[in-house]
């Protein structure tokens, strides 16, 4: 079992990173750390995809020296998925950061619990 984990070291690391990111996004109170957690979570998925897409001994799928045999190259789809995923995570990160700035301007805190307490107070008054 343990040797399998070591053999698939990239995938193992990716899963651990995913867990770290997920817990950070779920449990941390600080918004910036939450966003960092989200990025770690997404990056873990990209690592997993890239590791799975890589085949040892094969080239990047760009024809440079006239080899047209498909077996010489690795599958370009996982890399494409990683690129798409990066675009998606950049836009969600930007949105969350923008939201965090607006929240900080209004409540002068990055702590989500503090913010929610202040929101409740505002409403009560």
């Amino acid at each position, binding site marked *: 079992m343990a040797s399998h984990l070591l053999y698939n070291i990239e995938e193992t690391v990716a899963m651990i990173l*995913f867990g770290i*990111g*997920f817990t950070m*996004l*779920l449990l941390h109170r600080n*918004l910036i750390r*939450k966003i960092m957690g*989200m990025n770690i*979570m*997404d990056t*873990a*998925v990209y690592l*997993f*995809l890239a590791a*799975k897409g890589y085949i040892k001994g094969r080239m990047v799928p760009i024809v440079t020296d006239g080899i047209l045999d498909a077996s010489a190259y690795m599958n370009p*789809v*996982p890399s494409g*998925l990683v690129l*798409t*995923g990066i675009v*998606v995570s950049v*836009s*969600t990160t930007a*949105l*969350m950061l923008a*939201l*965090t700035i*607006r*929240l900080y301007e*209004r409540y002068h805190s990055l702590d*989500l619990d503090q*913010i*929610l307490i202040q*929101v409740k107070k*505002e*409403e009560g008054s």
Partner: protein
Amino acid sequence: MLVQNFPFFSIVLAMFSGILSSVLNGKQARNVSLGVIGSTIIMSAAVFFWCLGNGESYTYMMGHFPAPWGNEIRAGVLEGLTALLFSVIMLLSVLGGMRHTFEDVEPSKVNLFFIMIDLMLSSLLALIYTNDLFTAYVFVEINTIAGCGLIMIRQKGRSFSAAIRYMIMSQLGSGLFLIGLTLLYDVTGHLLMSPAKETVASIEAAGRYEIPMLVILAVISVGLAIKSGLYPFHSWIPYTYGYATPTASAILSGLVSKGYIFLLMKIFYRVLGQENVIASRMVNVLFLFGLAGMIMGSVHAILEEDTRRMIAYSSVAQIGYIYMGIGLGTESGMVAAVFHMFTHSATKALLFISAVGLYEVSGEKKDFRSLRGAGYRNRLAGVGFTVGALSMVGFPMLSGFISKLLFATSALQSPHKMMLTLIGLAVSTVLNAIYFLRLVITLYGRAEQVAVKGKQRCSFVFGGAIVCFILLNLFLGLMSQPVVRAITEGLEMFD
């Protein structure tokens, strides 16, 4: 055939109108949006009737790469019907909340609101029609971003904190969904649903990858359940639905959560294989969470004093119903779940929109005391709210009754879950009746003090939207047979 292009047209039209709206002013953007939603209704209807007439679904190749690679759209009876109903409800929600949209949103940002509406429509249509898993993920994220935009555009009070909570929960869900897709892609080597399903079938037949397949199923189900607000993951719902503009609340509760549930059903049927899902007992987990949601959502709603949050909590209960139907693990349970999806979309949007009309004549207050007698001050909104509330409780002739009937009859077919389902339905119906009828009685109670704003004529558009919503509810309630037949046929086409 021209009709076969319509799903693609409607997605792209909605998306490009969003881009176009960024250089238009508010009123122009509104007109573009309404035009796009209108043409989507026509195109979805055409797709629906074409598939119904031909009795078959079709796939539509995007770009020039054939099946195992490339990207595909798939349309069948159920896709057409869902797209049709979703776009009708979207149009009515936009029309019903129109005046509030222009009041709540800064004039310079009204066009942004309509961009979000366009993007929302486009992503919902893409979630309904797509045959490609990664495209589904991308549009799930677009949907999340558009939803977040709809919540925060109000820029008042709680809307920012509601938006950040929504984003955090949504990102947790998307993350799980993404890792599920990635694992599925690694196991099967396909992103298109049909080839992936073939590979899954051969894997299952060979008895390999049992644990990874279970993990994939669990992770995808939980991810989409978080995003649609199934019970233990519901904490963001009252904040989100309770503090957005009326149109946004109606769309978020009525359509967005259903888009994810539809995607989950599609993945169950078209990728993982419904029989594998049932065999894995994941359905039992969804069933229990659904039951818990049905009861706990209603309990929370009873305890709530703010009526808008009460309606939002009732969504938790109704999402529970849908997951319970999926969890029954039978064909008829699934039909009931899809029908309840439509019921809840139509009814909850009606409730949110008509509640706004009631708040207007009660000095924008949302508690029970201020709403006393509001049904007399704005009669049409009062009638609309009453119809919606009765439908949710399960009054005969309205769509809620048919869904409860379908749930009960389908429960009889699964012996182990029969008693639990029937008890759950009974308890939940009583709880629904307690909080909804309490509000309806309040609406027609005698006002203690003189009305804050007195009588107010509701606008023609608002009235029209309410009337159409009521008619839609009556249609689903009285003419349910053809709809149920279409759903059954559509689910059969999924295989």
